[in-house]
């Protein structure tokens, strides 16, 4: 099963200025630990990736394709799409810098039948303490204590 991960930087002008940089790292859950997945990278395509981009960042970062398009006049957007094969539970870590502030956001996926289902995602506007978040994610993904310490 294919999983996309977006890493990008955007300088958006409209309707309000925003500076966004995100590096996404994807981990497979393996025996209670995390293993970084290998990627195949390609360029971002609006036709192919718009909906996935919204699904990824519309909630977590409050940033949508519509925002990117809107802000492009006089701004910039550079995005790489990494595709990897997923066979089980996954953890995505978004290392984001929004208008000069750094955030580490998590999204957890689990297999539900033949589909990977998002079971948890942080939202940048709700600053739950890091300790609480990793506790929740660890429980959802069956991670051993300390597995999330080094991400």
């Amino acid at each position, binding site marked *: 099963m294919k999983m996309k991960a977006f890493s990008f930087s955007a300088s958006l*002008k*409209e*309707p*309000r200025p925003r500076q966004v940089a995100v590096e996404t790292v994807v981990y497979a859950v393996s025996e209670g630990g995390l293993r970084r997945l290998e990627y195949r990278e390609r360029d971002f395509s*609006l*036709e192919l990736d*718009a*909906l996935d981009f*919204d*699904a990824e960042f*519309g*909630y977590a970062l*409050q940033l*949508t*394709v*519509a*925002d990117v*398009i*809107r*802000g*492009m*006049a*006089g701004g910039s957007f550079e995005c790489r799409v990494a595709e990897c094969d997923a066979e089980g539970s996954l953890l995505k870590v978004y290392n984001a810098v929004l208008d000069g502030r750094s955030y580490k956001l998590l999204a957890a996926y689990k297999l539900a039948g033949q589909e990977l289902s998002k079971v948890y995602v942080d*939202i940048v*506007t*709700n600053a739950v303490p890091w300790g609480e978040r990793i506790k929740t994610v660890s429980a959802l993904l069956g991670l051993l204590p300390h597995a999330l310490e080094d991400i």
Partner: protein
Amino acid sequence: MERIGTEVLEHPLPKYSDLANLPPEEIGRIVKKYVPVLMPKAGVDYKVYLGKPPELRDGERLVAYTLSTCPHCYALVAATLYEKEGKVYERKVCPEHGEFEELYFGDYATYERFRKWQRDGKGVWTPNVHLNALCPFNCGLCPRHKSHTALLNIAVTNRCELRCWYCFFYAVKAGYVYEPSLNHIRFMLREARKMMPYPAIAVQITGGEPLLRDDIVDIVRIAREEGYHHIQVNTEGIRLAFDPDIAIKLREAGTNVVYMSFDGVTPYTNPKNHWEAPYALDNLRRAKLVVVLVPTVIKGYNLHEVGAIIRFAVKHADIVRGVNMQPVSIVGRVPKKERDKLRVTIPDVLLEIEKQTDGQIKREDWYPVPTVVPISRFVEALRGKPQFELTTHFACGAATYLFWDDGGELIPITRFVDVDGVMQLLDRAAEEIMNGRNKYIVTLSVLSKLGRYVDASKAPKRFRSKRRFLRYIFNILVRHDYSSLGEFHYQALFLGLMHFQDPYNYDVSRVQRCDVHYAMPDGRIVPFCTFNVFPELYRDRAQKFFSYEIEEWEKLTGKKLAEEVYVRNVRKLIEGEPYKKAYEGVADVLSIPYEEHVLASKKFGIPVAE
């Protein structure tokens, strides 16, 4: 309107009446199952053409790109916003239906001034649907929506006793009766109260004509029981004019304000309720139930009366709390030439208001809706939890507060309050608290500085005590006291503009920030400008799904839909004292011949008792 293979939805429930009287939780459990059936379908209801946005032409300057929709087939397309000759336009090309160009904002300078106030919300932490489609075909609210519900609309009927020529929404034309049961309404209201980070607290009960429901008072009571602080009833005012008791009952049940259609001060510009409005105002006055006048503003129709509408509101300021003008949304397939005759945008209305009030209310006196976000952010920083925020798109609405002196001089709040200064002060203070500075010290600092931004000598006489004005601000900011806001409102007239979108000027960037939403019968919550701009995909589809067949409804209620037609007795209305007094000093309506009154009413579609 041409549709691309619109899906025909069969009625899935044996009868709406089988659902209507179940408990609210049971109704919710059943209706939510139909959400996937009711959602718009890619390739069936709409297509996606995310190509390059249209190029600029000579004399045009790029403002922004955006996503929009084809007015004919609803395809999602890229669009270009550009400035030309001081105005902002939108251009888009549908591969199937060609190019569309529309006025987006009538003044570029105002666009830029407003844009600086854009603030975004915290999103919706409890989305009602999964994200399966591009915006605006995934409502809602979906995980990417940026604003919580500031005003929830709940349509409680599609019946109406008026037969306005342009309306295709009411039950007789639609061919079904949409009238959710009290338990169904309670379920919808509860869904919006579950929203995080901020639940819906304000609701507008709308229709059709909601006052046609015999249980309208129960609906208001239910809204109050479900925790809504602010309840407004949207009406054309006919029943209010003839039934003094209904205004009293509405107020006693918990209605805060009536939103009443009011398109002008003459029979020609307001054939909907020109004759009844004075009587409705009198009955509201007796009931002590305040009203906001809601004109739909159309170029070449009533744009020349926006100043008179404000003067009318000031004349009745004991009962009129505000005027909320709505520049026209053009629905249906309308050729460009015809649209240009109707189209008016927020800056165009502001300019007309400035002209028609002899410069007493200038364009600069207006601010876009998100201007007030720093107040919410400051209170949030103080209280440590999310607050009610008006984070709609800057191009969606504008407002100011108007005061007046005994001599009739109109004084916008900006003449004696430095709005920019106050908001910047609060913004900085919120930032300081969030960065760890002691909130009590910051608050004291804010309070000590606030006086610098108020010039009481320029305020209306009754406001010349700076302390009195600052007390309002203190109560709102520090005590976050809703009654303080109410008290402030009673001293002023709220002037607002809300430009709802239409298929020609559609902008996805705006709808993602929308904070005026509709409760759907299947439990979804949908932005105003998807609910009404794509009725076949949202409003009509869902309402038809949970409706009564006309025959069944008539059998259940013993009423005849076709007989619910208002017939106007013009002669009686124009001879009454309330009518004679209401427009005095605003418009000379008494010199209009009776025949012209009758003609105006009939032309609009409202029959007259001769």
